[in-house]
């Protein structure tokens, strides 16, 4: 993002976590409240990034292993004669999906709780910051009108 920009910038989805990273703008006269908001957002972003990158990587890996073991059981190789990667059809993959979901169930429950808490907190802070800014702007306008 350009150096003179005064707003946050959001980028393309990360290749591991599929989340879009945000580069936060730090205003020179940032108040304590605004700093708390920014830090909360940065922390949430980092935590989400960690979770999903690790989770998606595990999914891909376990999927590969599953396909490999199934293909081996059927007596096939990972790549057939034309060099194409051999895949299993949706019905065979269904067992894997079911398994993966149940294995990660507790992890997801924990993450959900975490995410909801963070989301509410960040949005609430945003509300506070917006309110403070609005009051400040009103006060400035009143002062201008009086002058």
């Amino acid at each position, binding site marked *: 993002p350009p150096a003179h920009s005064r707003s946050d910038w959001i980028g393309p989805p990360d290749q591991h976590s599929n989340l879009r990273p945000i580069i936060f703008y730090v205003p020179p006269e940032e108040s304590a409240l605004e700093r708390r908001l920014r830090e909360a957002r940065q922390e949430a972003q980092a935590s989400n990034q960690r979770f*999903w990158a690790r989770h998606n990587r595990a999914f891909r890996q376990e999927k590969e292993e599953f396909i490999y073991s199934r293909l081996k059981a059927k007596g096939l190789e990972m790549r057939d004669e034309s060099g194409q990667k051999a895949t299993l059809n*949706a019905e065979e993959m269904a067992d894997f999906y*079911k398994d993966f979901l149940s294995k990660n169930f507790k992890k997801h429950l924990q993450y959900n709780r975490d995410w909801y808490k963070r989301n509410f907190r960040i949005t609430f802070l945003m509300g506070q910051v917006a309110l403070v800014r609005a009051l400040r702007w009103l006060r400035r306008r009143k002062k201008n009108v009086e002058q």
Partner: protein
Amino acid sequence: AGLFVWCLRNTGVRQLPCQFVHLYHVANDKLITFQYFNFLKRMYVTRCNKDLSQRAKPKSHSIVSPFHELQQLDQEKKVVNKISPVSPVHQLWSETSSRNELREMKSAAETEDSVIPVGTQSKEDRQWKEMKLRLDDLPGILARLSKIKLTALVISTASAGFAMAPVPFDLTCFLLASFGTGLASCAANTINQFFEVPFDSNMNRTKNRPLVRGQISPLLAVCFAASCGVPGIALLTLGVNPLTGALGAFNIALYTCCYTPLKRMSIVNTWVGAVVGAIPPIMGWTAATGSLDAGAFLLGGILYSWQFPHFNALSWGLREDYSRGGYCMMSVTHPGLCRRVALRHCLALIGLSTVAPVLDITTWTFPIISLPINLYISYLGFRFYRDADRSSSRKLFFCSLWHLPLLLLVMFTCKKSVLKKEDKGDLPGGSHETAMEIRLP
């Protein structure tokens, strides 16, 4: 075939990128508009081909969406035409990206049923974007935030409930009820998206939602939801009747606070979701009559049963995304149950249609005329149950899209007229005429 025509119509717009190449300004916000325009074009095309991945609306409303898109394109055209000459570097970039667009659009127009992977990132998708809200983008963003097409479907089911109620038609009440229901639906959909940002980013179907892409801040989204929900429920409570308002508020709570979290905890979410879908027609009925009669529950029951073949068939193709995203859906955890339930409810639709005349809502022509439609969807439900593959699930899903509006339409034409309610031995022709009388205010 209809989709093909829209794609062709849109290719007329492809002449514009050549003009863009010359009319390109370096200013950031113009860059965003241009990117957004190209993105709109791409979305438009991919939407034509990715029907399965949307909870799309039935045919009668599919006319609305391309016009909506075309309108946006027109607005964008006007904005872009105002900009001044280009710098050579950007010229090159926009040429390659527009060429990609053209190629994509051409291939989409040629192959009707080809699946363009939404994963193919066009150049502008890989850019860093400023997180500033632009007023010209706002209508589009809010439309996507409130899932406007789904909202339109909800409004139409509520209107069906209103129309089927055995009372004289009141236009103001009808409009107030529809508008209030629409606002409530917008609010609920927005809060749903607000809760699900990281999950939506990880699923192909939903990764282009406004909050995921940072086009609007969560605070604004919540404010928008509040500014839709509060007036919507107030309108229903004060302008229609308190019962409808209460149902609306209950439905919002059910959808946002029960269904959305439950999606990640238990397969029960599908049943809760079916109730959410069943409530709008009940709201329409209570708006007209002011009370919860058997008829309201019958209409709700029809919508409730319809949700299962519709959603179970849709979710069959999304199993990988659901599994990775951590969503507890029947199609992943209990596939046999998924198909059984879909079939069961297709058959239930036949039963419910037969009950309608017993409750004096429609004449006996309704179960007779609706039988072929219901049998067809039950047949597809049976095929899905037996074959359990992608093609049968798709067939069932697409059938459900036209089945519902058609069923409601037939129901309305077979509606038992208010005047001749005492006469149970009506000739079908007779009740038809009087039904016509009532329809025209």
